[in-house]
């Protein structure tokens, strides 16, 4: 389902502050599996996730999703592909603080022109599933960290894609909330999603739900 072949990402190429964030990283995640990118800060986990999530393009190498070479797709097709295939949970959730929970969750549906009733139905369903119904009219800035994370997950799932990418999803959670998060991940896996997460939390990496762990250091896959 997800395959990277010798993906390299260099930031500020040709400038004095050039950084090689990722070097020839090759990973493969099968359909329906949960994989974790493990490693310390600066090891290239977020960069690899952003390449897989089509948030940026590699300087060399390839990214393939469901057999398609997304790293070569033009911007217009790439956005349509993103909407169809994947949801992304960012490290700081990247919600829009002045919008309500419900509006934030529905944001990815706006470009598809899905009618309002259907958008509401899908959002209600996810809010119900992630225990956010009571907060649906709350502005996101007024939510707790756990609620914000659940809102971000709901937003990532509303397009009913096939892949969920999550960058350090438990970085801001305590032990109890981490357990809750892992339960949610289990439920998402049951929805036939392929999940790729980055984490340096042992509780996540060693969880029995996880099928595969890629260890990273200094921008390279070491195991």
């Amino acid at each position, binding site marked *: 389902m997800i395959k990277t072949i010798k993906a390299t990402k260099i930031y500020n190429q040709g400038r004095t502050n050039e950084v090689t964030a990722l070097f020839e990283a090759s990973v493969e995640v099968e359909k329906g599996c949960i994989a974790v990118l493990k490693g310390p800060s600066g090891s290239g986990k977020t*960069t690899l996730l*952003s390449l897989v*999530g089509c*948030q*940026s*393009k590699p300087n060399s190498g390839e990214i393939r999703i469901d057999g398609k070479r997304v790293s070569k797709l033009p*911007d*217009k097709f790439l*956005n*349509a592909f*993103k*909407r169809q295939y994947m*949801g*992304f949970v*960012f490290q*700081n959730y*990247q*919600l*829009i603080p*002045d*919008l309500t929970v419900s*509006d934030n969750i529905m*944001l*990815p549906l*706006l*470009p*598809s*022109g*899905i*009618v*309002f009733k259907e958008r509401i139905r899908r959002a209600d369903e996810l809010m119900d599933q992630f225990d956010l119904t009571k907060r649906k009219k709350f502005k996101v800035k007024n939510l707790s960290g756990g609620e914000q994370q659940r809102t971000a997950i709901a*937003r990532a799932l509303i*397009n009913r894609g096939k892949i969920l990418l999550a960058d350090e999803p438990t970085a801001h959670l305590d032990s109890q909330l981490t357990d809750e998060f892992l339960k949610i991940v289990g439920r998402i896996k049951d929805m036939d999603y392929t999940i790729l997460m980055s984490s340096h939390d042992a509780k996540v990496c060693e969880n029995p739900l996880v099928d595969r762990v890629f260890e990273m250091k200094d921008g390279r896959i070491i195991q």
Partner: protein
Amino acid sequence: MNLRNRLEKQRNILDFSLQNLIRRKGKSLFILVIFVLLVSIISSILFLTGSLTREMIKSSEQLPDITIQKIKGGRQVNIESVYLDQIERIPGIEAAEPRAWGYFYLDSLNANFTIFGFDLSLLEAEDYETILTENTKQKNLTGKSQYKMAVGPVVYEQLKKSKMQETYLFFNPDWETSLPVDIIGVFKPETELQSADLMLLQTDAARKVLELSDDEFTDIAVYIPNPEEVDNIALKIRRAFPELRTITRSQIQSTYSSVFGWKSGLVLSGLLVVILAFLVLIWDRSGGLSQEEKREIGVLKAIGWDTEMVLAVKFLESLILSSISAVLGILVAYVYIYWLRAPGLREVFIGWSTIYPSFKLVPYIDLKYLMLIVSIAIVPYSAVSIVPAWRAAITDPDEIIRHNG
């Protein structure tokens, strides 16, 4: 995507744009207030210039086809009556009428009145109906004094204060006695822009007040039935009498246009600096977008929004904000010019005397002015807003979120 989805998408763009403007109340209001202020100032000047020019041109239609003045030493002097016969004999001229007019300075008011000589007996009863107000017309036709006059509304108010609203006594320290003139009427307010400081006296009385000798006039008004011949006849007069100057009606009209156009141009060019400063200010504020707005663009792109959709949202935001500003600015200008009568601005555009007309302009809004105002308001602002949004939208979402998250 079917038609229904496409329409829904457009509605979503509009909804999201409105939602953004409401979410950023502070910024939206700041821009709105400055914008309304700018548009209203520009609109006020254009409305005022347009109405004044139109009114002046309309009233100048009553002017003679050619006005003849005598020039001596580069300045206008009185013209002798001997010219009258010779001018009237030029083929194509229907009539040449001598005119007596000038100014009379009234020390107590620190103002000049315009004195104009006219044979009041030529006025028919219906003329009085047309030009004079109801409460004054013909009331003094049988007054005591030998001379009579009709006056402008502002003059009448001033004379009333001096308790001379029935008969005014013209006096000059050089004269042996004063000259009493009965006031037989007051011009209607519609004519105020021209008649505010006017005293329309019987010609004999005007000649006395202006101290014109028996064979002299101020100028000669020439009437020509065929408008095609006006310039040609003016040329003939100048060739026959090099000491005379001719002023055609069309020259006066173009002078009116250029005088107001020049004044408004001067004020508008000053304003151009303010408009530029406003645009630079918007541009300077994080390249038109705040850090939060840039982050939002990055997030929207990251969750699958197209660049075109992000730009459409930003364009609509600018369009809505600048359109509301343009409409409000135009309304404020309308109220300021036509209801409040342009306090602070009218002195720049009219008169040099301390007697100002009360200045009630007939609303006149030229479509080309509206187009100009709308393009000044909408086009530069939309461009200034769109460019930074476009820059953010074509950058990798990853990069924007990293730098602004």
